[in-house]
């Protein structure tokens, strides 16, 4: 996998994990404002990172989550799960 693509997808995984951890924490601590601020920060960061991935490498998800480049439909171009290195 292309180095930049690999790094970006790993960054998405990392931020997504942090957001899930804070979501679980907030389930039992719904009034913790510091945690809410951090959670919102990760959500925003995740959104931006996903957008930047999709602009360069195509959709992360199908069904209307991201537009395709005009020259061709990209969804099926990506690696299949068994093609992933990691």
């Amino acid at each position, binding site marked *: 996998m292309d180095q930049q693509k690999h790094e970006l997808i790993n*960054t998405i*995984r*990392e*931020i997504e*994990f*942090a957001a899930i*951890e*804070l979501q679980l*924490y907030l389930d*039992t*601590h*719904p*009034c*913790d404002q*510091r*945690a809410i601020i*951090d959670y919102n920060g*990760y959500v925003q960061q995740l959104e931006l990172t996903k957008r930047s991935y999709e602009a360069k490498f195509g959709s992360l998800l199908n069904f209307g989550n991201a537009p395709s480049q005009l020259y061709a439909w990209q969804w099926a171009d990506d690696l299949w799960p068994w093609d992933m290195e990691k």
Partner: protein
Amino acid sequence: MYVDVDSTNHHEMCVPSSIASCTYEYAKAYIPSQQYATTYDVKQALEKGTLFPELYKPYHEEFCEPRR
């Protein structure tokens, strides 16, 4: 269910005030309320499997070897 714990009191970090102030009952499980303190950076968190340093409990294989 949501217990506010005074984070300046180190004893109460382990025992929520609502539990500390009453007598423990038998055959009941108590879970101290987690305090929001420092977190790992996102890269470390994914590697360690938790965002929270206080919840990082790595598994050490040597503790679980069968007795001979």
